[in-house]
């Protein structure tokens, strides 16, 4: 894996999108490109198609909630895309930040927590994006089938948000009881 501080993809992205705002970080050999949510789809398409990038495999899509995080972050929610290139033998991280506009306790649809789906670029993003939606309530525009994937459909929250109580809000107690006469 070529993960030196001068990751070749940084230079390619910078020269191809001269007027877009990016940030880049390095941590223990892993290179992360931070993009604005609006630019995400275009940049991802470039990373897939560009001859010197050729990120042909999307390993995972991950949500992060930075509520009460000790460091100052560009937004409360992060969405991380882990890219691999089998052709160029590269690994690359793309990250974008979102800020909620409505209270995050419930399952209310938040117009600020929407980004473009990358399922049209990598079909394998379908289930991972569904998981991010299930756990964080971040919606993916253009996703073919954006339903909850792990929890059941009428679940009253997005449990990996940091303001969601770890013991839940009574979901595990509210259930019918079967006794010995039930058959």
């Amino acid at each position, binding site marked *: 894996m070529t993960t030196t501080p001068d990751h070749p993809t940084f230079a390619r992205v910078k020269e191809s999108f001269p007027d877009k705002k990016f940030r880049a970080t390095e941590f223990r050999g892993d290179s992360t490109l931070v993009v604005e949510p609006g630019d995400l789809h275009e940049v991802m398409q470039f990373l897939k198609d560009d001859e010197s990038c050729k990120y042909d495999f999307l390993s995972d899509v991950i949500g992060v909630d930075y509520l009460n995080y000790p460091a100052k972050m560009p937004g409360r929610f992060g969405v991380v895309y882990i890219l691999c290139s089998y052709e160029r033998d590269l690994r690359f991280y793309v990250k974008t930040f979102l800020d909620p506009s409505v209270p995050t306790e419930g399952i209310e649809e938040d117009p600020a927590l929407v980004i473009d789906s990358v399922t049209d670029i990598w079909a394998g993003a379908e289930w991972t994006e569904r998981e991010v939606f299930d756990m964080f309530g971040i919606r993916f525009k253009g996703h073919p089938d954006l339903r909850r994937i792990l*929890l*059941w459909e009428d679940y009253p929250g997005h*449990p990996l948000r940091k303001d*969601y*109580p*770890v*013991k*839940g*809000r009574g*979901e*595990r*107690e509210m*259930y*019918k*009881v*079967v*006794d*010995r*006469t*039930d*058959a």
Partner: protein
Amino acid sequence: MGIETALPTDIVLTTQLQRVINWARRSSIWPIPFATACCGIELMATASSRYDLARFGAEVMRFSPRQSDLLIVAGRVSVKMMPVLQRIYQQMTEPRWVLSMGACASTGGVFDTYAVVQGVDQFIPVDVYVPGCPPRPEQLIEGVMAIQRIIDEDGIPPIGPGGKRAPLGIAIDPSHAPAPQPVGVGLPKG
């Protein structure tokens, strides 16, 4: 071979029907494994030759609730899984017993989160709890033997409030009326 070689062949033994039936039931407990976690591995070890659950007549793991007597809940049960467990319990035929194996099935264990049921006994009846994380096969065998002791005290049909199980209402008064047969049913003569 057994006791029959020591006894004269032409004798009559008297006993209670209840004892004979309980003896048969306790000696052929067919468990259905509801194994969702590491307790299931210990359950498999218990059935293996080293611990040999067959000594207690419980080696026939049935994967159909209709054919099993003992539901062994081995492992944590998520809230999403609970309706499946309840359906399996409801599909089991009487007489039936439930063994909650390990800390997770009995109390939720360390998984004190929104998604995990904090003890299956909140939602289905449980007869025996086996502690441990996971329990050793010896402990599970002790649990099966505890089920056998419960069976020993059972009545026919089991009495509700004081006994271990509720009356078999479905067997005493069936909820359906059999329709009259349109033609006579019998063996052809000749």
